[in-house]
């Protein structure tokens, strides 16, 4: 795990000159967010992936399943829950990420977290209230994502047990 600010600064220095002058492009921000979230995703999925017995896959192949079918019906089925949880983690981490975004985003393409910082740095009650409303929106979207994923996981579990 690397500090998001250090990561952002690294990307900024790496992609500042032609022909790779990609400073300010949104996809570079997304790549930085991905790098920040990746360790969490790996830590969530690895224990579940380690529990998959290779014999199950081998048996499926022996019974005539194609490699893709074996992967879909064994690996993906076991990994579905951790994948959903990891996706929600990555999504919420990216949604609230500030360090790397503040270095890589250009004017006009601010993320919500950055906008909160910008509004709070300027004087005036109106701007402060707007920052508070933005923070509220950020918090509610994170809660909503967590609830949706939890509901989907529970629904899937119920469907499987029926």
């Amino acid at each position, binding site marked *: 795990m690397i500090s998001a600010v250090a990561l952002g600064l690294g990307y900024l220095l790496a992609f500042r000159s032609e022909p790779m002058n990609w400073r300010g492009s949104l996809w570079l921000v997304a790549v930085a967010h991905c790098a920040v979230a990746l360790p969490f995703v790996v830590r969530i*999925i690895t224990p579940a992936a380690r529990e998959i017995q290779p014999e199950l896959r081998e048996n499926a192949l022996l019974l005539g399943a194609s490699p893709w079918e074996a992967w879909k019906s064994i*690996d993906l089925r076991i990994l579905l829950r951790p*994948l959903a949880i990891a996706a929600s983690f990555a999504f919420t981490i990216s949604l609230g990420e500030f360090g790397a975004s503040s270095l890589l985003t250009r004017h006009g393409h601010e993320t*919500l977290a950055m*906008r909160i910082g910008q509004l709070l740095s300027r004087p005036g009650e109106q701007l402060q209230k707007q920052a508070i409303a*933005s923070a*509220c929106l950020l918090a509610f979207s994170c809660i909503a994502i967590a609830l949706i994923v939890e509901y989907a996981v529970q629904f899937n579990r119920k469907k499987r047990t029926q």
Partner: protein
Amino acid sequence: MPQASALVVWQLFVILLVLALTHRQKSISLAQQNLMPLSSERKTKRVFFSIAATLIAVGTLLPIAILLTDSLRSSQGFTFSYWATSDMWTSFLTSLGIALFAAMMAILFGTGSALALALFKHSPRYPL
């Protein structure tokens, strides 16, 4: 200062509420999945769990509640105008797009890395 005292009082009230709810009960909501059967624990442990759970809940929910009330209040009274700025929603959509892309990439690379690590575990040459 009055806000701080209100927070302390509210926190104590919620601690008492959680204790009352978990008293003589087989479980709290989490225990439906047998994760934390409180009834089988000692009383001190139950009290500790209740306080910890309450602190976490208050620490998470209280800032959101304060933010919400603050964002809907102005000197003239209730207002929804701070939520109706186009800049906020533009930034929100930008954030959503970036987050979606980042999450997809993280899942793709994360799953690949996790499966590779798992393969190392099952490989006889590289036992982890």
